């Protein structure tokens, strides 16, 4: 099966060959055989041609890995997804770029705008306090604020949508 591994600022095209529980992988440059055992749920000991790696696979998001203690963000695209991407479908996600979510849970201490305000990319939208630090969240795109879902002084969970920009 042909896949593309995208991460760490580059991409590699590979063929996976899984047979009798053994995995082989080949690129145009090299061929490698894998010996993968599970050490605990989501953690693997990987011997790739006898090179030893400990690999953690994130439970929430399978594409966030950790190799020998180093975080690696990865996309593994199979032929179908590669084709879709070539057709330009990858940009589907971007239409929701105006949704500003909290990356951290915390207390909204300040909101700088009201509905209808025009904002430019990079302009501060609101302040969220977590772990005693005030964090300024800025507009990811330029546009009009069409919705503000919280009030100052409100405590929010991780991933809550605070502002919508269109």
């Amino acid at each position: 099966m042909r896949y593309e591994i995208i991460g760490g600022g580059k991409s590699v095209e590979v063929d996976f060959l899984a047979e009798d529980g053994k995995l082989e992988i080949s690129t145009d440059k090299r061929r490698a055989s894998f010996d993968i055992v599970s050490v605990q749920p989501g953690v693997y000991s990987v011997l790739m041609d006898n090179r030893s790696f400990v690999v953690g696979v994130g439970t929430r998001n399978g594409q966030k890995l950790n190799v020998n203690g180093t975080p690696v963000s990865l996309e593994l695209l199979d032929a179908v997804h590669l084709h879709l991407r070539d057709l330009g479908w990858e940009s589907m996600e971007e239409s929701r770029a105006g949704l500003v979510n909290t990356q951290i849970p915390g207390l909204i201490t300040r909101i700088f705008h009201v509905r209808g305000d025009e904002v430019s990319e990079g302009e501060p939208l609101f302040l969220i306090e977590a772990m005693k630090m005030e964090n300024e969240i800025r507009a990811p795109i330029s546009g009009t604020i069409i919705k503000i879902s919280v009030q100052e002084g409100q405590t929010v969970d991780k991933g809550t949508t605070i502002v919508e920009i269109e």
Partner: protein
Amino acid sequence: MFKKILVANRGEIALRVMRTCREMGIETVAVFSEVDRSAPHVLFADEAYLIGAAPSSESYLKYDKILDVAKSSACDAIHPGYGFLSENTDFAKLVTAAGIVFIGPPAEAIKTMGDKTMARQSMLQTEVPVVPGTEDPIEDISKARSVAEKIGFPVLIKAAGGGGGKGMRIVNSAEEFEDAVGKAQRESQSAFGDGRVYIEKYLEEPHHIEFQILADQFGNIIHLNERECSIQRRYQKVIEESPSPFIDEALREKMGEAAVETARSCNYVGAGTVEFLVDKYKNFYFLEMNTRLQVEHPVTEMITGTDLVAEQILIAAGEPLTLKQDDVKTTGHAVECRIYAEDAAHDFAPSTGQIVLLQIPDGAGTRFDGAIRQGMEITPYYDPMLGKLICWSKDRNSALNRCERALREFYIGGIETTIQFCRSVIRHPAFREGSYDTHFYSLHKEELLAELASSSDEVLLVAGGTLFQHTEQQKHRAHHDSSKQSSKSKWLDSRAERNHR
């Protein structure tokens, strides 16, 4: 000696203090907030008392409640750790008034030195040089702005009521000034319950170098050399080391004497830290004095072979110092990396969640002062520091090698941490050479973050192969489950059918 000590803190420093108490045969009392019921300091202590809700203003800063616990549990002393109530004059006074020993300096010394503007005023009376800046906290914003203009931008805005980089802002121009003051005031208020801030000249190419001092109740004061704390981000220290690669023996002696003089000027008792800024010409200026145990104190412990918490307790119990200045001998080199629950790639945004996997490094010269365990939830309520990795070896180079090895062994899964960021710093050529100042992070930010984001081809293949296998197994499992499911419902159907017949 004390029989029972209440530790008015949480996290790694509470554990650190309790470990020494236990070694000294002293019982320990923990206090905890509702979200900290199963926090490591509660599990470690001999006794533990709930003092309130999660926000620190309702628990760890509630000094009346903490004092009540100390009284009812018959503690003879209270150790405040760092942060929270450690530099709160009122608390120190109340504790002392209740006949309980406050393990820290007299309230008067906290008042003088804990208040950064008062400290500056006080130090202007001594021979110790002071950084130019405002003498009083900012009250009138336009007056403050004109002071800033007179000193010359950039200036620093700093919290009068506490340290640790909280409530600190660098201001490059008069336009940014008012906004920055507001932010700094709000942060100070939230962190220390005291919104006062002041202005200081921002020195260029400065080193942040501090001296550890110990003073007993009999006027004996010694210093235990310096700690180099110039690696900072967000105005907060992230890596510290001792000895400083920038300081020579002559300067060390001069600065050590200034540190002792500083302590003497405020009749200091206990362990304290005198912070200096040193410019590229090796001029040094008094910055502030922290009247408490410092986060980075283990660096000094490892090169001097002392236990600073034990020294604090002995001093508070009225013992004279056993060490004289000439007895202070250092061996080797120590480096500390602070491990924060933060995402370095996203401007060090705090990261919360469950620690799903934990592997703490160990071995020769490797110490971890932390308060974490696998399965534990990191909440958004408190300081994001998870712990500190401290590595010692016979010289700077081997200590850094050890640190790099230990960081590679260190794995915390489930949340973002500064482990990788610390590794990038330790590997950076400028840091390796010891030629760095407080601008290190801003100067090398791009390279450091680029290193964080990049992966070798080999790592990509390994990650890709493992993700493939992991996904296949999950598909297999899902398929297996659903086929069991479907065969079951088929069976039910056939049973129903049979019954229909």
